[in-house]
């Protein structure tokens, strides 16, 4: 049997890798990739808690649904923004996007 700790450690490591991607990458789409990794780590955690702590109750799975919905909405809007910015400014690098800064 696999103890709960294995899943939690895996999720924590995946979260850390995702966090690194978000903080260190320059390209906006690469940052979005990092966010996807972090959301996946969250999902692993939620489902591990469901299986090990409350298998008779699906509340954790409802949270997973919401994570999926948020991930989809975030990707859809985020990428649309990237495309729209790219058309105006011809760039997709986070540190060159300074329209709101002066």
């Amino acid at each position, binding site marked *: 049997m696999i103890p*709960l700790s294995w899943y939690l450690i*895996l999720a924590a490591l995946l979260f850390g890798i995702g966090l690194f991607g978000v903080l260190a990458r320059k390209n906006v789409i690469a940052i979005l990739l*990092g966010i996807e990794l972090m959301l996946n780590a969250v999902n692993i955690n939620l489902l591990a808690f469901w299986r090990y702590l409350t298998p008779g109750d699906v509340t954790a799975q409802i949270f997973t649904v919401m994570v999926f919905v948020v991930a989809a909405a975030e990707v859809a809007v985020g990428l649309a923004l990237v495309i729209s910015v790219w058309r105006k400014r011809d760039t997709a690098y986070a540190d060159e996007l300074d329209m709101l800064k002066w």
Partner: protein
Amino acid sequence: MEPIQIVFLIGAALVLGSAVMVVTRRNLIHAALFLILTLSGVAMIFVLLEAFYWAVIQVVVYIGAIAILIIMAIMVTRNVTGDTVKPFNNMAVWAAMLSVVASGSLIWALSYWPAFDQTAPVADTGEYVIRLLGLELFSAEGYLIPTMIASVLLLAALIAAIKSAFPISQEEE
């Protein structure tokens, strides 16, 4: 070591290895392809967790839709594959340290939790769970309002995305 543990370790190695590649690859398309590998690994982990519905949904939604969308966006915004520019900003070292600290402290904090080394209780994880999920999602005692809010959120996301990515307004018929 039990066989199921070996399967888990293979899955975890797949997830972590390809996740590292996702955040370090210079070519964004390669990064996105490694993301697909990571997502498959996560689906495998879900199977081990007996969250079967989520394993297949992971493939359908994440690989079949989100990863495809990301690859398409990379290809639409040309010149961003980043073969020439360095992929990281100047803060990369600090970011690496911060993420090591973040995951390390997460694991450290969790290890004091009494349920940390719990093993899985016996439970019915078959069709019963899906039926319960459908019931909870669509009943007033359950989570009907979050479901409806999620639906409205998706509608809003669709409208916002089309509005911003598709500026030409051409009315039809």
